[in-house]
Structure formats: structure tokens, C-alpha cells
């Protein structure tokens, strides 16, 4: 399922949980792990700009180089050292590299240039990363949180194509032997139906959307999947359902929600989910 896993680690945020999860996945799926340590140029640039009147060009360059060296050392002595320790008894292929750039840019470029089929990463809302990659790459993104439960929650909705989510959820459920619950959310804030190709195909009444959702979960129940339907804002209902089902991992599809009345996109729904959810989330694009 996931044979080439990309693990981006930002100099702004490092989580050991991501490495641990990658090892359990790689063991089960015989995957290769690619760790990319990203030195955040944006932070260096901001710091440099703040000093432009206070420090000479020479001093700013020297300091930037010192911070760059320090972060390279952090990658070598802490992140890659941890990887070695975790993998000491495993037979998993790993490659590591250090690059400088902006977190989302680097991941988007890496995904374009290499054949990764999963991005496995941590999330920290307190750092300055904006996580634009959630909406800009086509491979699944697994955001690992530290909370450990033993259940899977698959999220389908009127705002997503609902093709890959049930499939991947079932595969993961079988792989890890975790119970699966599927929730279908009808979002009254954006009452449109998204088709199988991921396109918004026009406004519909709430009654029709609920009827479609009911038919969808009936079909899933017939396949032996526990399923339920709820009506409410997508982000809130996901978090509510995650708590209710004590989900270890929430699997969300490529939703197409518009956030404002004018149809302009505000903060990404995926980012909101990652920010507010205490559990791991797999965004299937």
C-alpha cells in the first residue's frame, strides 16, 4: 500500500512519534523510509530582517551560517541518531538528507520529483509553518499525534468524493487489526454534492444530501462496516466523532468545502482538523 514513505522533519518541530509510527508501518508494509530534515529558511530570513539595522552584513551572514550549522548538527546528532537507535534491530531501508527551504515547498518538490506514496509527518500549531502542502499534494498525508487509542475512523461527506477513504480505511483496519467506524457527515454550511471526480456539482437541499448519505452508509453496512450519519459542520463533527469513537487514526478524504459566503477559501479545513484534533489524521487526496 505505502512502499515509499517520506518523513519531512522541520527544524521548527521534531516528533519522535513520527519515527515510531513510520517503523511500525514500514515493518508491516516492507516500505522504504526517506527522512528529509528541513532547515526553515523562513525563520532565518525573519531573524535576519529583524537585525538589518542593528547588525552589519558580515555579522548577519556569520550568524545565519552559525544557525545553519547548529541545525545541521541537530539533525545529525539528534534526529538521525534517534533513527539509528529505533532501527538498530529492524531490517528497514532508510535514507536521510538535509535541505534548506520552506517546509511545504520542500515537500511539494520532493513529492513531484520522487515516487512517494505517503507523507508521514508531525504537526505543531505553535510553529510558524502554514502546512500549505495539505491542499497541494496528491499523495496521502498522515499527521501523527502522540495519543494512542486503538480504533479507526473513516470520514466521508457530501463534500468529498468518498472513493479512496473507505478503501484505504478497510486496508488499514485489516493491516493493524483495529476496529473501523465510518461516519458520513452532511455539512449544512456548504450544501453541495461533490462527485466521484472531486468536483462540486451544485447546490442541493439538506433533505436530499441526507438521503444520499443514508444510502451511502447503508451500502457500507452491507459490506460489514459499522457506519453512521451526522449533520453538522465538517470540522466540528469530525472532532466530535473522533472523541466518541476514541479514534487512533482519522481518515479524511479530499474535501472541497468553501469557507465563506463569497466562496473564498479561508483557513484550510485540513489544517483546522489537524489543529483541533488530538488524534492522528490521514488525509487521503
Amino acid at each position: 500500500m505505502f512502499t515509499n514513505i517520506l518523513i519531512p522533519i522541520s527544524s521548527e518541530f521534531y516528533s519522535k512519534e513520527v519515527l515510531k509510527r513510520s517503523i511500525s508501518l514500514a515493518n508491516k508494509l516492507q516500505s522504504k523510509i526517506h527522512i528529509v530534515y528541513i532547515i526553515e529558511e523562513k525563520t532565518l530570513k525573519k531573524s535576519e530582517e529583524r537585525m538589518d539595522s542593528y547588525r552589519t552584513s558580515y555579522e548577519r551572514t556569520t550568524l545565519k551560517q552559525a544557525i545553519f550549522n547548529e541545525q545541521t548538527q541537530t539533525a545529525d546528532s539528534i534526529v538521525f541518531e534517534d533513527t539509528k537507535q529505533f532501527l538498530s534491530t529492524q531490517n528497514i531501508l532508510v535514507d536521510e538528507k538535509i535541505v534548506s527551504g520552506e517546509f511545504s515547498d520542500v515537500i511539494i518538490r520532493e513529492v513531484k520529483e520522487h515516487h512517494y506514496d505517503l507523507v508521514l509527518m508531525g504537526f505543531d500549531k505553535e510553529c510558524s509553518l502554514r502546512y500549505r502542502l495539505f491542499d497541494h499534494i496528491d499523495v496521502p498525508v498522515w499527521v501523527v499525534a502522540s495519543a494512542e487509542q486503538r480504533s479507526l475512523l473513516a470520514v466521508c461527506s457530501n463534500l468529498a468524493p468518498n472513493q479512496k477513504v473507505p478503501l484505504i480505511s478497510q486496508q488499514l483496519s485489516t493491516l493493524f487489526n483495529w476496529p473501523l467506524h465510518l461516519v458520513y457527515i452532511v455539512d449544512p454550511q456548504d450544501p453541495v454534492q461533490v462527485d466521484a471526480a472531486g468536483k462540486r456539482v451544485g447546490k442541493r437541499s439538506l433533505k436530499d444530501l441526507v438521503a444520499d448519505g443514508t444510502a451511502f452508509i447503508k451500502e457500507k453496512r452491507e459490506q460489514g462496516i459499522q457506519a453512521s450519519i451526522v449533520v453538522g459542520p465538517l470540522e466540528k463533527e469530525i472532532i466530535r466523532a473522533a472523541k466518541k469513537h476514541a479514534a487512533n487514526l482519522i481518515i479524511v478524504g479530499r474535501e472541497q468545502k468553501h469557507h465563506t459566503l463569497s466562496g473564498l477559501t479561508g483557513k484550510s479545513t485540513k489544517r483546522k482538523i489537524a489543529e483541533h484534533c488530538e488524534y492522528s489524521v490521514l488525509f487521503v487526496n
Partner: protein
Amino acid sequence: MDEETPPPHHRFAVLPQLTPRSIIALVIAFLVLLLFYLLPTPAGLTFAGKMMIAILIMGAILWITEPIPLAITGLLIMIIQPLFGVRAINDVFASFGNQAVFFLIGAFILASGLEKHGIHRRIALRFLRFFGKNARSFTFGIMASCAFLSFIMPEHGVAAFLLPIVTTILIASKVIPRQSNFGKVSMLSVAYGCSIGSLGTLIGGARNPLTVEILAEQGYTVTFFDWMVIAMPVVFISLPLVWFILQLVFPIEPLDISKARDTIDTQVKEVGTLSHQGILVTVIFLFTIVLWVFFSHVIGLAIIALLGSILLFVTRSISWKDVEQHLPWGIILLYGGAVTLGVGMSETGAGAWIAQLVINTVGEHALLVIFVLILITILLTNTMSNIGAVAILLPIGFAIATEIPTISPVLASMVVALSGGLAFMLVIATPGNAITYSSGYYSTRDLFKAGSLANALCIVILFAVAWFYWQGVLQI
């Protein structure tokens, strides 16, 4: 695409480097000038005073939003005054050519001598080795060394050179950025130690000579020694208490710091013994400090600073290349703008007019006025350049003091000057915060959490010192 760079459709074709935010800031800043120009002059204020207030607001907007470099805002403040007929062109540039500018230049040259010969590194490592018994005392060592070095060098220079030393130690101790409280406290100790130490002498921050200069323009003399007598108690009380707050906010995890100690020992060995040239620089620097402390009222701060600098050249301890590498002309221009702003506010009566407004609002209660001055300065200095915040509030504080008999202008000015150095809460507040934040060991939320408590504590300390020590004991 870099997140800092806006997408192409948001860019302005004619001014591609300016973001919409910068354009808006510039437009608002110049609209303020236009608006004030067109508005009728209020009673009790001259046209020049009205326009000086407009320039003050424009400067504040540009220093906070930074669409152009801080130093260039300083230049803008200078040229707008004669353009609007606020002050004569020669008066504006004359106030830029004061002795404090040359004191700053001399202080930077002396600091480059210390840096070239690694004297600052030796001092820092001695401190760290002395305090390296356990993780907590080690963080106090970081704070104390930063504070001490900020007595003799500009604070941001201290933060920049301490950063690699501290990170090497943290990496050796396997401290994970953002997750370890030891990492957080160590880095915040660098930032806060530099800020607190910079209050102690005239060298630590350019806002200190700015205060002395603006007071001198009004006929009040504060010598190098006077400054230390006034400011040092604030430093010595704040330093341990702010360190204690850091320990409370981020309790340090049990940690073996033997590797940190080994790293310090290795670094001490690497720097070795001081060269003859290094000894000479130390002697010249100590000689300069002695002159500053005991003879600055006779010879003048700038002459002593330049004498020390010239001695470094005569003894071939530094070269012009060293000066080029370490003398930030931007800060001199920023200083120039700040000092002309302060003098302009006083000369045009704008400071006195705002002071009257403040007194009408909060009354003439001396304690309340001191508290409000500290609070406003700390809030402002957290959102903009320290020197800019002091330049804006100093003339107002000074004018308020002349209206209230129980507060002396020196006391009000010192309150503003020292509060101006207490920028603890935001990354943008001071280069020291920006430098340490870029190491990745703490988040903006960590900084705000610790900084807001530290700032609250320092408000109390400064208020108490101002009232009981400055007014009660020193009777200023």
C-alpha cells in the same frame, strides 16, 4: 514558493518588492501627515507642534510595521521636519551631530576589539564553567554572562555570539528543540539576560545614550557613573527574579549535564590563553571604562570612547576591516532619526501639549503617572524597535515631568529609557529575541508566556526602584 513572498496576483507590478501590507503601512503613514497638515491646529499647539505629532505618529507606524528598514525611517523623520517647515534644516542635522553619536561609534569600535580577540568568549565561558554545577545553575550562568557582557557590548552582539556557544552545549546534551524545558530556559536566558544587562550601562543599548543626549539638550547631565548608579539596582533585582520566573514557567527536566560541562571545558581549551594583543585590548578597554566612570563629566563620553578606539588602532589591535565588519551604520542612522524626533518634540512644544493631554486624563498623581509611563513604554517596546519606542515616549515623559512637581524630568526619562529595554514578549520586539528564536528551541507561545510574566514582574520592580530608590534615596 516562499510563504513570505506573496503570490504574483497579490503583487504590485510597479513595486514588485513591496507586499500589500507594506504599501498599506506606507500609505497610512503618509496619510497621517496629510491629514494633520489639513486639520486645524488645536488650541495651545503651534503648526510646527501639530506637524511634529504627525511625524511622531508616522514614525511609530513605520517602526512598528517596518515597510522600510528602521534606519531609513530614521532618515525620513529627519528630512520631513524641514520639508513641512517644522524645524530649520540646519537645526535638524545639527542635533544628529551630537556627541552621543560619536560615543556610539566609539563603543562599537571598542566592542569589535573585544570580539576580534575573543575576550567576550573567554568571559562567557568562565561564567558558564563557574555556574555549570547543574542544569538550573547553568541557565543562571547563561543569563548572568549575557547580562555582564551587555554592560560592555551592545546587547544584540552578545545574543548573536552566545547563541552558537549555547546551542553547541544543548546539542551535546541531546536536548530536543521545543520539547525540552532546559532548551527553552537556556535560550530565553540568552534573550532576557541581554535585555536586562543592557539597562546597566550606556553601552548596552543605543536608547541609553539617546536618553542622556535628550536630557543634555534640556540642560540635565547624566554621566556614565550616574547612569550605573541609577540603573544597576534594576538589573541586579530583575536578573535573578526573571530567572526564577523562567524556572517556574518551564520547570527543567532531570538532566545529566556532564556532557555540557565537557563541551564548555573543550571550548575553554580551544580559546586557550589570551594573546599579548588580547591583553592589550583588555587593558585599553578597562582604561576606557575607568575614564568613562570617573572622568566622563570632565572629558566627555564621546572623547573617551574615541580615545579608546584610536588606541586600539595605534597598537594595531584592530584594523579598519574589523570596524567595517562590526560597525552597523544602520543603528547610527536610526539613532539620528530618534534624537531629532525627541529634540523636535521638545522644541515645538508638541511634547508638552501631549503631556497636558495625559495629565488631563490620568491626573497629576505621581505614582499613577510613573506606572502609566512604565506600562505604555513596555507595551510599545514589545511591538517596535526599542530605540524607536524610547524616542517616541521620552519627550512626552520628559514634558509630563516638567508639569508635575513631584516627578523630576530625569526620573521620568530614566523610567522610559529602562522600560524601553524590557522587550520580553514578542519575537519582533528586539534582535535578541529574534536571534534566539531562530535557533528553534522555543515557540512564540513560550516567549509570550514567559515574557508577559517577566514583563509584569519588571513593571513592579522598576516602579518600586523608581519610587523608593531613585526618588527616596537618590532624590532625583
